[in-house]
């Protein structure tokens, strides 16, 4: 349990009470040529996670860090390591499917031991774990939560495309309610995924994470600032990226932007962060994006054929809306503190 505190300000947040000074905004670095992922990846057209990974790596490189990445099996691993590596000067360790958290611990232990022996200076490095939603919510959860519980320094990024896309679109613990996947097929009796998804920031905070955040490649400044904060904050930091997947979501390949905007405005995906004050047992929550216009759940579901079955069923759409509304109600104090009428943010929908 922890006390919940709210940051009254809504929007991109360079500050953290855990840091002596704010992190730099992306523009402040000037024209430093940095590449995150190098060319040659084999992601599908319209894939969101390549862009997200690229932005995260770029953010860390701008800080001058050498990135030691442990990447779990998944789409991202497959598409960046086929024939040629796209990781440039990053040190990459592709581990087993369940082990991303554990490998992070191994790397951190080595870094400590080597720095004690005077072989390396720890400030030069950043420990980065990257895994998909299957490798995070399902098979990798034990290792991830154990790593967080150990309180070790590092960043864990979950590239959430909401199912096992690489192996043929099987549902995962992050698959949205009602989605049609090959293991949650939409049939006459059972209508797609009947479970509601879990939420990584909740799980990570419960395990003791220092910093949690959600982000999306469409808002790259927000994403990169969050990654930089995570690199600077001591202890385990967990960031979840919204990763558009045309192949698995059965969406067009050129609506990356539209789908993300609808996700944010319908509040299916909320951009926020949480910072832990261990001494006071508080977590300070900041809402980083205020939906621009009220958008119903149905509008978000419309662009993706994986929801084509449930869209026809009023009860299911209502339930999906109720899940969204329930989660959004968390931010009520912030909205009220800002004098925002319910209508303006559309949360009476």
């Amino acid at each position, binding site marked *: 349990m922890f006390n919940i505190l709210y940051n009254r300000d809504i929007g991109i947040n360079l500050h953290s009470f855990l840091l002596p000074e704010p992190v730099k905004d992306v523009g402040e670095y000037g024209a430093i040529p940095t590449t995150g992922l190098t060319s040659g990846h084999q992601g*599908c057209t319209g894939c969101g996670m390549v862009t997200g990974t690229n932005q995260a790596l770029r953010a860390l490189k701008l800080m001058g860090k050498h990135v030691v990445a442990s990447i779990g099996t998944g*789409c991202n691993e497959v598409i960046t390591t086929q024939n040629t590596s796209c990781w440039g000067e990053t040190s990459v360790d592709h581990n*087993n*499917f369940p082990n991303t958290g554990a490998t992070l611990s191994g790397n951190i232990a080595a870094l400590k031991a080597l720095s004690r022996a005077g072989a390396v200076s720890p400030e030069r490095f950043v420990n980065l774990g990257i895994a998909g939603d299957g490798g995070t919510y399902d098979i990798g959860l034990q290792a991830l939560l154990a790593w967080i519980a150990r309180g070790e320094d590092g960043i864990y990024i979950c590239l959430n495309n909401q199912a096992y896309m690489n192996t043929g679109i099987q549902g995962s613990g992050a698959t949205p309610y009602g989605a049609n996947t090959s293991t949650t097929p939409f049939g006459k009796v059972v209508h797609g995924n009947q479970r509601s998804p879990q939420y990584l920031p909740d799980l990570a905070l419960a395990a003791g994470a220092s910093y949690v955040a959600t982000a999306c490649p469409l808002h790259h400044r927000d994403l990169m600032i969050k990654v930089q904060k995570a690199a600077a904050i001591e202890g385990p930091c967990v960031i979840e990226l919204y990763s558009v997947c045309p*192949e698995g979501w059965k969406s067009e390949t050129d609506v990356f932007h539209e789908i993300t905007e609808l996700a944010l405005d319908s509040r299916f995906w909320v951009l926020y962060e949480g910072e832990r004050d261990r001494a006071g047992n508080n977590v300070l929550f900041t809402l980083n994006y205020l939906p621009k216009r009220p958008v119903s759940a149905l509008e978000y579901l419309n662009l993706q054929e994986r929801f084509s079955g449930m869209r026809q069923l009023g009860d299911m759409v209502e339930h999906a809306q109720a899940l969204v509304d329930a989660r959004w109600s968390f931010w009520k104090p912030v909205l009220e503190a800002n004098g925002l009428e319910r209508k303006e943010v559309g949360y009476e929908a």
Partner: protein
Amino acid sequence: MRHDLVIRVAGESGEGIITIGETIARIAAREGLSIVTFRTFPAEIKGGACMIQVRVSDGKISYHGEKIDFLVCLNQDALNENYGDLHELGALLCEAECDLPEEKSPRTVYRVPFERIAVREIGSRISKNIVVLGTLSQLLDIPVKSIEAFLAEKFAKKSKAILDHNIDALQRGIRFAREKLGGTSGFKYPSGKGDRRLLMTGNEAIALGAAGAGLKTFFGYPITPASEIMEWLAVHLPKMGGKVLQTEDEISAICAVAGASWAGAKAMTSTSGPGLSLMSETLGLLSMAEIPAVIVDSQRGGPSTGMPTKTEQSDLLLALYGSHGDSPRAVLAPTSVGDCFQLTGLAFDLAEKYQLPVIMLVDQALSARLETVDPELVKQPPAVTRLSVQPGADGGYVRYRLNESGISPVALPGTAGGEHMVTGMEHDELGNFACDEETHTAMTVKRYRKLQMIGNDPLTRGLSLHFGDEKAEIGIVTWGSTAGPAEDAVRLAASMGIAVQAIVPKILNPLPHEELKRFFARVKHIIVPELNFTGQLASLLRSTYRVPTISLTKIKGVPLEPSEIVDKIIEAQESLSVRSEKRYGRAG
């Protein structure tokens, strides 16, 4: 005379390559022909090279064919990659702009501007594969009506406009072949006998076999190349009153199987090597607690994440021994799609009857292979159910009773008077923890006795495949999907005047001892072809029977080819003749 045709279609994944191959296969199956296919998958999610090979025959076949009679290539990369496998008298149908390697072989080449026809004339690139299908059907003289009927069924749920669009594409392909390519080629599609045959993949056959055997609960975790089993069951098992649950990992899947089976429902999981590795500890629990379970391992290139879309037979020793301690389990290895169906039924029967885990080893090539199945084969005998007790009859229930048969009757949870403890700890007859030497010895012997009984059970008798000449001095022992190329190799060797005999046991634990011993007594050389680096079956045979073996291994991610086995046969033949020369002296 037997009529065989090997067709390969190659191009970019997403172009409908597989649809072309599958359409040919399905039409052939409807006409009573035999089909075996082989397909490769790109490691990428979308895009990348892919191909499907279809062997059509009016005789019995068990392998997808080595040299290609008719090759279809939709781009230059596909041509470069596949041209070497084309028979020297074969024919090539390719995209008009492709460059051909220089060579002298009298191969026939048909060039068609498929891309242009699809994009310019029809106005949709995705119709390209149907144009190809049209040209191909004309060149091979496949009846147009059968293709049209097939398309009509395929698009039955779509609008008439979509069907008309596809028929138009088909007709344009046919017209091009008639007007510009001179109609039919010299290659003729075998004519069918009329009796429709079933066509399914190995994974479908396993899922169907499990459902037919009375599977009630399935637990699994996505993994290539086994996922289709779970996907098929996710759609169909609930309709049959069963339950499918996707768990968070393989450890959870097999533990859920243990729970469901202990509670009385037939339970199964399917996975690939990495998953079986994770399941190893629980394999021991299933042995120790004597819980029936069926585990399917569709092997892929290993170790670790390895080569997920490539085939290999490198999990044999893991299946046999994986887990700490002495943990007996039965291991079955289907050789064909028909076997996948039948042996799944047998796996349940053995698991239920002997209360132990049964692992079924297939591989990527067999899992994904489309093959015709004789409808007679998909009739299962009545399923065996586990020996249950009416508690109280003999004054108190004893779960692990040491009786003569070694099989202790089961009382399901909730049976009044049958309450008991099941544990992974070593236990006495009542299920209470006991670690004295007598108990551990008696219980280990009890658990291993079951393997002996399985070996003697009529259920496992006559399971092995035999082919070739029983008088031959050269023998082949192989397993799983390598049976197909081995059978073709035996035939090929016979045509070269070399007598060979082969045995393919379909149960690998316990091995069919008597049958194998008789086989070893008949032959002088034992060639063991298999798809792994270390020669796992060969080493098992050496250690079990103390026989010398000639190991033939391959780890290229694709099945062995008959000619590779024949090369080994010729080597063995030469050493035999050297020996007889030594014995009798050189003539003349």
